[in-house]
């Protein structure tokens, strides 16, 4: 912690510098719009953001899926899961709602994944919905027997990374370049990678909410 006057003067200096910089930025930035749109057709999808995320800069996303996995492994290494106190309670309203909402949410996540190829959406958006569904399920005391199976969860968590890595290695064998999908097949490759990523992202986000490793069963059996 720092005295307020010192922090204040640092912040004012920073703000002045940032404003100066922002003001001097070109009003018509060069950007990469033209390049990305020009080569959109080769990417296998028509949504430019998905094209950037999964194809043009797919390597970033590969590492990012790694970051997600590392984060949940880190959280697991730190703590045991906290089950919300509401879990296992009697939910006269919530239980019927969840019966309808959970399948709908999963369906919506899948839809977002699919639509991501043409319109706003994709694995991260779908994953966020899936994660939300998982949080709802946890709050409603559902699925606890599955969420305690650490071995199953681990497989789900690493699925995104493993499929992505296998795709990267395969593409290298087929076309000589890391993540260089054979021409014309980009869409299929992206869909496969994104589907695996969707599951891992959803699981990771949901399990981050639990804030620790599930405490019983599965590997490693040392609790």
């Amino acid at each position, binding site marked *: 912690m720092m005295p307020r006057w010192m922090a204040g003067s640092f912040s004012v200096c920073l703000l002045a*510098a*940032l404003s*100066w*910089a*922002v*003001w*001097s*930025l*070109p009003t018509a*930035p*060069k*950007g*990469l719009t033209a*390049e*990305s749109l020009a*080569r959109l057709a080769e990417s296998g999808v028509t949504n430019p953001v998905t094209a950037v995320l999964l*194809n*043009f*800069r*797919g*390597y*970033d996303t*590969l*590492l*990012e899926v*790694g*970051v997600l*996995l*590392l*984060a949940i*492994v*880190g959280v*697991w*290494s*730190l703590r045991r899961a906290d089950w919300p106190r509401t879990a296992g309670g009697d939910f006269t309203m919530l239980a019927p709602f969840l019966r309808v909402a959970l399948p709908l949410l999963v369906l919506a996540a899948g839809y977002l994944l699919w639509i991501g190829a043409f319109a706003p959406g994709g694995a991260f958006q779908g994953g966020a919905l899936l994660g939300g569904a998982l949080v709802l399920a946890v709050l409603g005391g559902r699925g606890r027997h599955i969420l305690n199976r650490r*071995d199953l969860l*681990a*497989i789900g*968590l*690493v699925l995104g*990374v*493993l499929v992505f*890595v296998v795709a*990267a*290695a395969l593409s*290298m064998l087929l*076309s000589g*370049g*890391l*993540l*260089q*999908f054979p021409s014309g097949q980009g869409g299929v490759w992206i869909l496969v990678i994104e589907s695996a990523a969707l599951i891992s992202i959803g699981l990771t986000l949901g399990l981050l909410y639990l804030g620790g490793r599930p405490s019983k069963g599965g*590997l*490693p059996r*040392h*609790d």
Partner: protein
Amino acid sequence: MALLILAPLTTAALAVVIPRRGRGLAFVTAVVVGAAVTGLFRELRDHGVRIHQVGGWGAPLGIDLRVDGLALLMLCVTAGIGIAVALYATRYFASNLNLGQNRPQEPKDEATHRDYYFWPIFLFLWTALNALFLSADIFNLYVTLELLGFAAVTLVALAGGPAALSAALRYLTVSLSASLFYLLGVGLVFGQCGTVDLPSLAAQRESGPALWVALGLMTGGLITKAALFPMHFWLPPAHANAPAPVSALLSALVVKGPFYILLRLWFEAFPTLLTPAVTQGFGVLGAGAILWGSIQALRQQRLKLLVAYSTVAQLGYLFLLLPLCSNSGGGGMAWSGALMLLGAHACAKAAMFLAAGNILHVTGHDRIQGLDGFARSLPMSAFAFGLAGLSLVGLPPSGGFAGKWLLLNAALTQGQWWWVAILLIGGLLAAAYVARVLTHAFTHLDGEATVRHALPRIMEWTPLGLALLAVLLGFASDGAARLLEVGAPALAQAAKGRMEP
């Protein structure tokens, strides 16, 4: 090239699913990465700089991976330290099971827990470092920095215990805010130049307020992550409280990552902005780090904190590269000198932390006052500590000597005598703090040997091997200098400076 990233990432993911096979997976990774680095070395020698366009798009739309002499040197250092630390850790995390009699027995679960989580996170750390050194894209570098930071923090927290956990938490907050500064800088660069690819940025040769501020933000973030004085405050507690193999990794490798990005940014992407005021500024911070870090190291009561402050000081030498390299004449010398120091420090510091880990393990504490005669109970560790100290002080024939010698020569050639003074004072201070430990090691040898239980042999040999490597690196300086010339941005700049005086 791609194997260097795919192999550790795959094994890291597998180690999450089958934690009891973590050790074996790390072994596989070590073999694959070692082979890949050797292969790259051959390619580089025969064909010069290697570029791999990920996805086949090519920069600026796609991301390029690139290996030049500097990147290869960093990859070699990472592979070497990574393999050594992995060897040490195979026993370290297992040997917690047979602690001395008069110490509270650590629950077996806890040791297993650490063993199970160390390996996947260690492999993630390796992935992050390899990816960092290969990347030629400043946004991609941000992702690698985050991967590196998360892995480093989690490994520190693995030690458990209040001190380590608080240190890890502070490390995480500092590291995250530094990353955000860096990311905002990347955004500004993108707004100004429309690209985040290093060579494309270099080709544009733009300048302007936005780039100055962007570089300021990125540099601020990176020196915080690299623990350059005065942003080093988070380093000593984090490095001193981590488990021994983790301390070795952090001091030897992790802080070098952001330093590497700084070199790329200033020398490669924006060499035109590298004015004398900037380079002298870096030099002043470096000098501050050398003096402050060494003095603090002298004042510490605990061995691991002493070694951690020594890291603060040694990082300062690396930043002397900037004032000494941007002038023509002797620039190349400073370049290879600083990077030789980097390699030598990596080996020496890893050796020191591993040796300190042995001392802590056997004596149960690391208070310097209470270490009398540990050379008797741990002769190999004491010897390793001494050899590593030789390199830190900069005595011939060590790698530290070769590096400092080149830096000194560069400073003398350019008439920048004040850096000569700093280099010499830094050496003397280092000699003082190393001697402080060694006098304790070799006094009262007649006392009762305090061996509570034997150390696994590999834990004795690894630090010794690393320390020997640090000393022998001095003989490899010619080869390393030739390697560094492959695509060296600073050399190109020095040549340009000579051409248009």
